[in-house]
């Protein structure tokens, strides 16, 4: 298994939150043992969890500490009485006569080393700062990419789900066209309707975009007249947009309505119409 993938699986975080099953815990422990990189990540995560807790915490009241230690009192091992062992005799200090060494040259050498070390430290500090900046930027990029991936995943799941329903269901396709109407001759929108489970999707094939103040509204026209069953987004072409449930309809139509839709359709602004075959 790829170590990086393992680290990114989110398992380590759940391990630290104590949310893994015993089997998974053992797996993480074994992986950390086998791969120092995983152990490092675990340690770093734990460190930041601690730092986060420390940062967001307030100290419990001093009375609480007293109470806790009072409760613990009998647990503690009695502190042993201070030993009466005699203090070790201080070793006799010998005053040795040390010959004078040529300290000046040592001092000069030492200060030279100090200067060089400082220069190196400054240089590397600069380098480190630069790298750290780059690293932070990279992390942020990576974050954005991970988020994007997540979104794509979600979208995919949604689409997949709709496709499943479309394939599994008993959908009828109702073509709505604008040919016979004055608004937009080449407008074309398909309705997919499963009467049994009362589900309606629309797929925009061709529909002009609208200004801010207006929306396209889908109507199901049945015995009791037209019922608004949702707003259609003209920008989302060839995707399935789910509408509200309809059990009974002889035809579907789309009109242009003020933003948010209306209670009853503005017939002068009828854009497409399609009868259920």
């Amino acid at each position, binding site marked *: 298994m790829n170590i990086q993938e393992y680290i990114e699986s989110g398992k380590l975080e759940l391990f630290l939150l104590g949310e893994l099953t015993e089997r998974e815990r053992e797996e993480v422990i074994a992986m950390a043992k086998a791969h120092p990189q995983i152990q490092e990540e675990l340690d770093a995560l*734990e460190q930041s969890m*601690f730092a986060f807790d*420390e940062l967001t915490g307030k100290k419990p009241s001093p009375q609480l500490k007293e109470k806790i230690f009072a409760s613990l009192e009998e647990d503690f091992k009695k502190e042993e009485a201070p030993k009466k062992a005699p203090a070790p005799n201080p070793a006799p200090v010998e005053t040795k006569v040390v010959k004078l060494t040529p300290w000046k040259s040592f001092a000069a050498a030492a200060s030279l080393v100090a200067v060089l070390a400082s220069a190196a430290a400054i240089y590397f500090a600069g380098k480190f700062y630069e790298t750290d900046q780059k690293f932070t930027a990279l992390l942020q990029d990576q974050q954005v990419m991970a988020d994007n991936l997540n979104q794509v995943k979600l979208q995919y799941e949604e689409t997949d789900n709709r496709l499943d329903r479309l394939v599994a269901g008993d959908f009828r396709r109702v073509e709505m066209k604008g040919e016979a109407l004055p608004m937009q001759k080449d407008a074309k929108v398909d309705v997919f309707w499963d009467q049994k489970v009362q589900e309606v999707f629309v797929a925009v094939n061709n529909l002009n975009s609208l200004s801010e103040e207006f929306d396209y509204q889908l109507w199901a026209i049945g015995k009791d007249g037209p019922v608004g069953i949702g707003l259609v987004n003209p920008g989302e072409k060839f995707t399935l947009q789910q509408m509200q449930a309809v059990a009974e309809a002889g035809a579907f139509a789309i009109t242009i309505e003020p933003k948010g839709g209306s209670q009853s359709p503005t017939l002068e602004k009828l854009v497409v119409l399609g009868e259920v075959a």
Partner: protein
Amino acid sequence: MQEEEIIAGLRARDRKTTEYLYEKYSRALFAVISRIITDQDIAEEVFHDAFIKITRKIDSYEESKGRLYTWMANICRNSAIDKLRSKEISQTTKTNTIDDFVFGLESQSGTMEQVEGIGVRELMNQLNEDQRFIIEYIYFQGYTHSELSEEFDIPLGTVKSRVRAALQVLKKNLERI
């Protein structure tokens, strides 16, 4: 004190080590609990019991199975969640949110507690909507990831990757402190 020394000290029931442990971790561990339990008195009660549990169960702690802080934090988190779900508390407290919590911190200390230049609010503002949502439910309301997935109809994999993303953002920003 190194982690091994702390553990050895706790196992020997050494008072000084226990005090050291308290000084070093009480703030963070109490945060784990008081994030989930808004009522200060109940939170303290839970912390009291959890801390005692930590010192008494130290013999069953295995170093090979994770670091000390994680172990302790999980004891605290689980105690808080248990309490939250027990009958005595569920009706009386409202749900906790990040904003309530940050507000609570702000109003308690008068001004926002700033730890070396970065505040909690600032930290939270680094999260995007999804990540904030995750942190809110997992850290502040004690949801497990599978509960979150079920209740909000988010695929489990997505919850996992969002938990990771959120913690990465926190980690990154905490590193800058």
